[in-house]
């Protein structure tokens, strides 16, 4: 899986890059509006969001599907001064902005911040409405990529993306295959009151933070074999999953608060919400995290109980899981969920093997 950011600083730093960066820095520092300057990508935790996750574009999407692209673009242009309503990733983005504000207070000169990039295959003319909407909510999104129809996945690496959120599961799958943490977002069925002082991120364990190696055992050999296996290999760390690096990036930012004695007041909190049970298969998971040098604030072992009610109590700004069954359960009870299309879980639904349709040409 991809590293947080490219490691070779000396080699990669070239004059052109530094000149552009210095010019941008000067530009923002001179703005009368005193907008916070976007961080240097190399040091930032870059979150790329699509237009449909940032804003609610369900009606517009329907228009696109029913009447085609020309009518869709014309409609968006006609309504470009009407701000769009918030989408599934909106609360998450606001929470990221809050963390940035706290980080800037403690470390005014640091570039280690969240950087939010809008990554969309929308036409640039639709982009005007997106920019107007971003202005309306005063979101700190200064970087974007509007590809006018081409897939934006190629640009994820160019913008040094740490996490990509989209409504399009094909693009998300493509990103994961390229080694970029990614998930398909879902709007919850009911609205939940979320914290506006603390970013809360919940992760499933297997096939999200960890590889799907253990899940394969459950699916193919059953629970008993799984328990035996996990006990036997308790001290062998699991391989990493697609979201491991994102947890790592969050941990790095958390430590910046701890260093300033803000542990009790840390604006980032992470949760592990796993179907594993503490008694039989939980130890391996905790030991794996420890071997990676990663902390997770709360580890919740459900021993197979549904995740929905627990997540309702936690109220995360985003919950990552590889199984649609859990996503649907979480959604129903008001949790903003993000599906990670990775591993053996994609071939099953509620424990049964899905008949794979013939692949599209």
């Amino acid at each position, binding site marked *: 899986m991809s590293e947080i950011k490219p490691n070779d600083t000396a080699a990669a730093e070239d004059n052109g890059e530094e000149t552009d960066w210095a010019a941008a820095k000067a*530009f923002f520092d001179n703005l009368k509006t005193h907008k916070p300057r976007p961080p240097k990508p190399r040091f930032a935790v870059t979150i790329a969001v699509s237009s449909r996750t940032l804003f609610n574009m369900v009606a517009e999407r329907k228009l696109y599907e029913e009447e085609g*692209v020309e009518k869709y673009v014309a409609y968006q242009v006609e309504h470009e001064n009407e701000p769009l309503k918030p989408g599934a990733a909106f609360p998450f983005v606001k929470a990221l902005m809050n963390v940035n504000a706290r980080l800037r207070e403690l470390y005014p000169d640091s570039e280690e911040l969240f950087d939010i990039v809008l990554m969309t295959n929308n036409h640039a003319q639709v982009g005007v409405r997106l920019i107007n909407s971003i202005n309306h909510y005063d979101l700190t999104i200064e970087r974007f990529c509007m590809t006018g129809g081409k897939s934006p996945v190629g640009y994820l690496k160019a913008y040094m993306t740490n996490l990509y959120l989209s409504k399009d599961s094909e693009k998300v799958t493509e990103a994961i295959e390229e080694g970029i943490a990614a998930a398909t977002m879902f709007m919850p069925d009911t609205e939940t009151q979320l914290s506006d002082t603390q970013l809360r991120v919940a992760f499933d364990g297997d096939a999200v933070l960890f590889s799907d190696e253990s899940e394969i055992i459950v699916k193919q050999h059953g629970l008993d074999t799984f328990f035996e296996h996990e006990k036997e290999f308790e001290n062998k760390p699991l391989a990493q999953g697609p979201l491991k690096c994102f947890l790592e990036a969050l941990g790095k930012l958390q430590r910046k608060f701890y260093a300033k004695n803000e542990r009790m007041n840390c604006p980032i909190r992470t949760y592990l919400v796993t179907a594993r049970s503490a008694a039989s298969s939980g130890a391996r998971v905790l030991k794996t995290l420890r071997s990676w040098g990663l902390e997770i604030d709360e580890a919740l072992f459900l021993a197979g109980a549904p995740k929905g009610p627990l997540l309702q109590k936690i109220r995360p700004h985003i919950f990552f899981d590889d199984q649609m069954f859990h996503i649907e359960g979480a959604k129903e009870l008001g949790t903003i969920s993000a599906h990670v299309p990775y591993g053996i879980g994609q071939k099953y639904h509620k424990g049964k093997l899905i008949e794979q349709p013939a692949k599209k040409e």
Partner: protein
Amino acid sequence: MLIVPWSLQVTSRAVFEPGADDGDEVYKVGTAFPLLQALQRVNKRLLEENPDESLLFDVVLITTNTQQQQRSSSIISSTRHYGLDVSRFCFSSEEDFVESLLKNNVQLFLSADRNEASQASQKGVLSALLDQHSASCPPEQLKVLFSGDAIIRPDTDPTPASRQGAQTFLAQLGEMRRRFGAFDSPLSIVLVTVTGGRESCGAALRTLRSHGVSVDEAYCLAGAPRAPILSLLRPHFLLSDGLGGLEE
């Protein structure tokens, strides 16, 4: 506004590799070759939409290099060999080439030589620099790249002549783009803002729109490294000079 064929002048040194072997009738292709192919493709699609279309790219090849001038027949036969649609060939000295650009009523001058492009620009001819990346551009779609930073905050004050040239160019480019739909266009108009943030990019989008140009793709970098983005975009040429001060 009278729409006339759109004259575009390219230096032959950019189209063909200099220094072909003696005896060779045909030059090897150079930096601007994919660009010419892309221009031709746009013309072809324009004529498909409307066989009586008069707003087409009109390519003039200019040679200031004396060596190439001596082998003018090779240049001409090379263009035939590759099936390039060149309407006129122009041979001029290095001192006078800007005069010949003006005489030929050229709307856009393309060169791989920074000095040449700069000289033409100073005399009010809209110019663009071709770089080594142009050689690897796909010929299927012509990508014209605008710099958002130059539109909003020009480095130099434009001359009235170059501002007029820029406005005409934009109007005609916009008109040409409108002949095609939102997708599957052989011509794509791309805006990149390297230094500024979303306000700059938004302002550039609106400014171009007010001059009749509807941008297709927009990338706002706000200081992020430009090389990875440009290597993915692979534009045929970048227009940054001569567009300064469009915002009234």
